[in-house]
């Protein structure tokens, strides 16, 4: 037996529960191999003595019992707490469970978060999905071919043609007018916003599918997903117009335009 074997022996003694092991030291010392190693190895002998000391300390280790009124205290506290589940009848009927005459009832804490957990989770999931799609899309790709849009049976009033935003290098060119750069950048960012709106709409429609394909000749049902999306779009239109007007006004008022 070497020192590693000895340590392994000590560790393996822990595999038995404590109670049956209380006399294990004496039993182990019956092993001649262990005895001879301990006799010849001061380090392991010291370790063995330390373990013996610890075993003695554990044997002397006592804990005073809890106070005698522990049960009363627990039953009292059980009766006083607002019950998360109905209290056992006998506890509820116990005199200590009755509130004092001058006591005021505790105000229950309302957990708003839990009530709206499902819609919040859905909203977060949809936003995350839209963000992921946006990140994976090459924004320089055209939103739609203007010629193809013009051939649609019900073409939109205006089509935003995506333009690649100007690079910093282009801004440094002295021959590019600043209003040209701003107009170009504005168009590109509007196209990006439109793409984001489209992606969001697709993601939302994927999560909340319309029960039926709506008839273009009939008004949309009030509570259908397409009607809801149309309302969102209608709500955004004034903002889009306002942004466009502000941009145009700024460009018209710029020194370059006046010059």
């Amino acid at each position, binding site marked *: 037996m070497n020192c590693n074997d000895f340590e392994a022996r000590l560790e393996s003694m822990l595999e038995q529960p404590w109670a049956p092991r209380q006399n294990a030291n004496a039993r182990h010392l019956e092993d001649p191999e262990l*005895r001879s190693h301990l006799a010849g190895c001061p380090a392991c002998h010291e370790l063995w003595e330390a373990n013996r*000391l610890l075993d003695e300390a*554990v044997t002397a*280790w006592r804990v*005073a019992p809890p106070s005698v009124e*522990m049960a009363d205290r627990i*039953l009292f506290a*059980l009766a006083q707490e607002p019950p998360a589940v109905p209290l056992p009848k*006998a506890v509820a009927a116990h005199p200590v469970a009755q509130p004092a005459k001058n006591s005021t009832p505790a105000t229950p804490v309302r957990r708003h978060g839990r009530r709206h957990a499902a819609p919040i989770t859905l909203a977060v999931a949809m936003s995350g999905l839209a963000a992921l799609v946006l990140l994976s899309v090459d924004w320089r790709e055209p939103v739609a071919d203007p010629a193809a849009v013009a051939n649609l049976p019900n073409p939109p009033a205006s089509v935003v043609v995506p333009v690649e935003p100007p690079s910093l290098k282009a801004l440094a060119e002295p021959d590019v007018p600043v209003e040209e750069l701003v107009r170009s950048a504005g168009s590109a960012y509007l196209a990006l916003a439109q793409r984001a709106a489209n992606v969001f709409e697709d993601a939302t429609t994927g999560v909340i599918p319309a029960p039926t394909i709506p008839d273009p000749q009939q008004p949309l049902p009030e509570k259908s997903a397409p009607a809801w999306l149309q309302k969102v779009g209608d709500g955004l239109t004034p903002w889009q117009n306002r942004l466009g007007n502000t941009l145009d006004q700024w460009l018209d008022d710029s020194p370059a335009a006046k010059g």
Partner: protein
Amino acid sequence: MSADDLQLVGKCLAGDAAGLRAFVERFQNLVFGLCLRMLGHRHDAEDVTQDVFLRAIRSLHHWDGERPLEPWLLTIAANRCRTALTTRKRKVRSLVAEDPAAPQPTQLDLGDELELALATLRDEYRLCFTLYYAQELSLAEISKIIGSPEGTIKTWLYRARRELAQFLRDRGVAPVMNDHELQ
């Protein structure tokens, strides 16, 4: 699970006040013993014991009747002790920093020396040690209560023993009897 325990739980679930009292009295030493050894403070241990029983009684209808009751209670107690220790550490950290060399008692018996040594252990080591020696549980049972693999429990227990033994030696505590068998 003994028939007596099943009957006791049945009474508690039926709302029998005597049953509830018997339930608390039956297991209070078990729970309080663990709490006191973990927290090292009688008042705190009583508070946590009360909390453990409140939770246990309110959750009795979730308890699986096929499984023994003691490990279930000890699991609740272990979790509450860990929470209490975490809270306490946050509260007393500044106080300890102010007085790192608090006077320690010098004339103690072996059990008190062990109590003193236990306070120096990491929480998980102390929990393993207490469950093994005070509650006399096997490594498998401790593993289920703490929720860590058996091998980890064994390692923690071994390290706890080693650190405690070192602490006792550093304190100059000697074994009561010499090992004559080795001579």
